């Protein structure tokens, strides 16, 4: 630990921390643009200038260093005993001296020289570092009278637009593409004040290379100004009108920490949230843009039953009565219950409890892995399993007994007369084996969020909820149990998945008595091995790693 004097504070920081991070840890803001904790530090924005104090031998005293230093490249380390300042400090640095403040003002003035003041039509307004730091550290007016540069607006890729006029050439996006995605699509063209970010354009027989890697959306997040803009979010909402909730991405089994930004009428965007051991600062575009099904108009809103070979909407009482009648008549050996790796641990636990305690069946299955591709980047991996909770669902459903999966499951399904299937995965295709097995079932109860190949075969369809509409936990492939949180309301009369199961159980005479997901989590903590710490109180925003 290095003992440093930070302004008037005496603080201890880890060796190897830079001044920006050390100050942030102690509640002091050192404004910066080019520095990003997940990337290298080129120190080109010059915004994070701080004033180190050094020992000046001729004067025999500690004086402000002649040059200001950039906070992002000034790394704090324990000094050898004979190099301590004032006999005890490893480093003395001021982030608020008059020189530093003057330097910040000057840099901000330069940054705004060519920056258009189009905040009213800029997507970034409200979450823009340039706005924030100008407000806190800048001049109140510009002395620039000349004509501003107007570089062109560019379409960089499927989801990224570049408003070059707003760019402050911090090169975060370039470094991201070099260091994290390793695809190096972005670079600088021209020189000096005409610097522009660009992709390789078609030239000399070389093809145009779009910014279309699976992590491209992150450059929008790390852009400190409104230069890089997501087409998906363009002109959709002002950031301050959206509510935010910490959650976990349901796109694959990595379990990237995200912030869901939403309004009453739906989810507007997903943003990655820092988690040091799972996703760092990033998330992939599949997850980022994969939320659209949540807002879809096709969402199942009412229960449906099959009448004359056709699914027709009905009301809950009717649908549940049909389900309970069929289940109460059936022999336990003929019933198969299939949980979903899209559902939360809570959903699957209640389903397991329902199967074991109410239906008394051991035939519990897990709806197989969603096929996908694995993408490996230098600092990020997108996993092939596109279910967020395969590991968790398996643990919840098994609870002692083995879970049926793959061929064994479909073998059982083809022998069963009643199947209760929870899907929840949008647009999941059915393989021929799966389809044949499900077609052979006498009475198929499907709980799903969207019309799918599964619901097409169902006799009763019960509308469930997606990951943004419910509380619960997901367990990722590495064993991190993390919270998803309810943001928007479920459409129409769709209900929480575990509530539906609990209701059916109640009508069949089994009492579970859960009132909210947290209660189920406590039951999980008591009953499922390894989940003792995984109550909602313990998990918090950063998750709990299974023992």
């Amino acid at each position, binding site marked *: 630990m290095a003992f440093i004097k930070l302004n008037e504070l005496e603080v201890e920081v880890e060796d190897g921390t830079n001044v920006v991070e050390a100050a942030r840890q102690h509640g002091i803001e050192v404004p910066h643009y080019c520095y990003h904790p997940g990337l290298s530090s080129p*120190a*080109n*924005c*010059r915004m994070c200038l701080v004033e180190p104090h050094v020992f000046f031998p001729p004067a025999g005293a500690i004086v402000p260093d*002649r040059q200001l230093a*950039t906070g992002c490249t000034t790394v704090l380390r324990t000094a050898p005993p004979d190099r301590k300042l004032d006999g005890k400090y490893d480093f003395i640095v001021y982030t608020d001296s008059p020189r530093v403040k003057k330097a910040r003002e*000057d840099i901000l003035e330069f940054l705004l020289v060519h920056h258009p003041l189009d905040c009213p039509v800029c997507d970034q307004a409200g979450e823009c570092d340039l706005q924030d730091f100008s407000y806190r550290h800048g001049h109140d007016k510009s002395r620039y009278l000349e004509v501003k540069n107007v570089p062109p607006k560019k379409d960089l890729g499927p989801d990224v637009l570049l408003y070059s006029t707003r760019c402050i050439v911090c090169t975060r996006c370039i470094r991201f593409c070099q260091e994290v995605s390793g695809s190096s699509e972005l670079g600088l063209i021209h020189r*000096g*004040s005409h610097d522009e970010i660009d992709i390789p354009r078609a030239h000399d027989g070389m093809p145009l290379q779009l910014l279309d890697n699976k992590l491209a959306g992150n450059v929008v997040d790390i852009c400190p100004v409104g230069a890089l803009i997501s087409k998906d979010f363009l002109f959709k909402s002002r950031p301050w009108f959206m509510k935010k909730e910490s959650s976990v991405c349901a796109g694959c089994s990595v379990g990237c920490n995200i912030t869901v930004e939403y309004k009453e009428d739906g989810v507007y965007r997903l943003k990655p949230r820092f988690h040091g051991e799972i996703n760092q600062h990033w998330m992939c575009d599949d997850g980022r843009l994969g939320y659209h099904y949540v807002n879809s108009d096709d969402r199942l809103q009412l229960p449906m039953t099959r009448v004359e070979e056709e699914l027709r909407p009905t009301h809950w009482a009717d649908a549940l009565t049909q389900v309970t009648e069929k289940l109460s008549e059936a022999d336990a050996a003929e019933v198969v219950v299939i949980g979903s790796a899209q559902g939360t641990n809570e959903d699957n636990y209640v389903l397991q409890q329902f199967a074991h305690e109410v239906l008394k069946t051991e035939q519990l299955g897990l709806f197989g892995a969603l096929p996908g591709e694995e993408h490996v980047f230098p600092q990020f991996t997108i996993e092939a399993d596109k279910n967020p909770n395969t590991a968790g669902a398996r643990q919840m459903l098994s609870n002692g007994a083995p879970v049926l999966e793959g061929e064994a499951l479909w073998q059982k399904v083809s022998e069963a007369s009643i199947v209760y299937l929870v899907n929840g995965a949008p647009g999941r295709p059915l393989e021929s084996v799966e389809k044949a097995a499900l077609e052979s079932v006498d009475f198929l109860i499907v709980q799903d969020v969207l019309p799918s190949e599964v619901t097409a075969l169902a006799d009763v369809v019960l509308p469930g909820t997606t990951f943004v509409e419910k509380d619960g936990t997901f367990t990722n492939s590495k064993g991190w149990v993390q919270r998803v949180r309810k943001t928007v309301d479920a459409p129409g009369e769709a209900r929480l998945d575990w509530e539906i199961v609990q209701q059916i159980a109640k009508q069949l005479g089994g009492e579970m008595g859960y009132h909210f997901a947290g209660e189920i989590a406590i039951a999980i903590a008591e009953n499922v091995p390894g989940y003792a710490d995984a109550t909602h109180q313990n998990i918090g925003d950063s998750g709990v790693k299974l023992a």
Partner: protein
Amino acid sequence: MVQEKRILYEHLDVPGINTFDVFRQHDGYARFEKAIAEYQPDDIAKMVMDSGLKGRGGAGFSTGLKWSFVPKDIKPCYLCCNADESEPGTFSNRYVLEKNPHLLIEGILICCYAMGIETTYVYIRGEFTLGKKMLDAAIKEAYAKGYLGKNIRGTGLNVDIYTHPGAGAYICGEETGLIESLEGKRGQPRNKPPFPAVEGVFRKPTVVQNVETLCNLPFIVGEGVEWYTQMGPTYGDTRFDPPKPDPNTGTKLYCISGDVNKPGVYELELGLTCAELVEVAGGVRGQEVKAVIPGGSSAPILTRYELDTRLDFTSLTLAKSMLGSGGIIVMNETRNIVDCLLNIMKFYAHESCGQCTPCRWGTPWVRDIVQRIADGNGRKSTITRPRFGIAENGRWGDTGETEEIYEDLDLLESVANNIANVDTMTWNTICVFGIAVSWPAVSYLRKFRPEFEATIREGQLTTLSVEAATVPPEENYAYQQRIVPRELE
């Protein structure tokens, strides 16, 4: 009359000196052979330190001291010869490359021997096509004669030289920009520390030396430190007690251009005055000297009152200017300082690499302000402070005063100082390009303010007489602040 003291340029005019045989007849490679025969590598490093040789590239940093920073235990170590002579007004390296390339090779060999370096990169300015051709031919010849390559002259010394042409960027003359460019990246300077001596080419220790510095090495080794230190003054640094010797030894290739009768490169001992140099170059063309740029276009300008400044590293630094690369530009009374500044600022705005914020957007801004002033659109306003009293005509009236405010001049000074503050010598930029911009801008403005004011007042470029255009010494802050160093007894 000061005489030229030709050392580096001694045999420059000998026909065929660019060939190995002729060079050999004129002591060529004898000094290198002496070095490997008589001295250990450390001896040579010590000789260079004792000689007081200062880097001729611009910063004037002690070469021996720079060598001492190179870690001995990290190999490979590289030598990078900076032949990217891009400072406007400087053209001395070019003659060495074009006429006497073997001298450079000999200097490189001595440096490589002293530092245990096996690989040298010569980064040549892209426009020096002839220079590169001549150097390449000389390198080929040296390989053929066994003075380059593996096991040179049977001593076990291996030295390879590679030449690399630049692509035309001014900033690639900055040592870390040069290294980045050499590595095949955009020519953008690195953050320092680490300095190239610790982490340079391919992240290995690197000695970056100017052509002229390396060409001095054969003479230090050949003629000895004693002989070398007799040339040029050695000042006493009075911040220390007793005064620490501050040597400005050796000769300097002064590139004199502008309004003199005989412009060209003159090799002279360090320490002669500006006025003497103008005399050497055939005197001023025209009536009188209006201003002198002492060290390439980025150096602060000297007025006619400062012509007694000695042209060496220490004196010019203490006179708030710099010797830089030794590119001296003389201006006579017909030159308009605003126009000159505009010319220089156009150059710097174009050459800013655009890496860091103040320089990227500050330099074009400065250029635009100067352009506006030169176009006659400079802003000026008059502040009146009325006061009721007895006026000159003996009646009651306004006896207040008026003051002319030249907003654009204040803005120019402020913006330039925000890129790099010339008073405190601090810069907010990554490299010293920032100060290379604000030095001329602020010094021209401060020393020739009447001409700027006249240009704004008249609404067009206005050239005043030298007397009227120059701020007199008693009002010239830089002149007041300057220190004339005293030679050590």
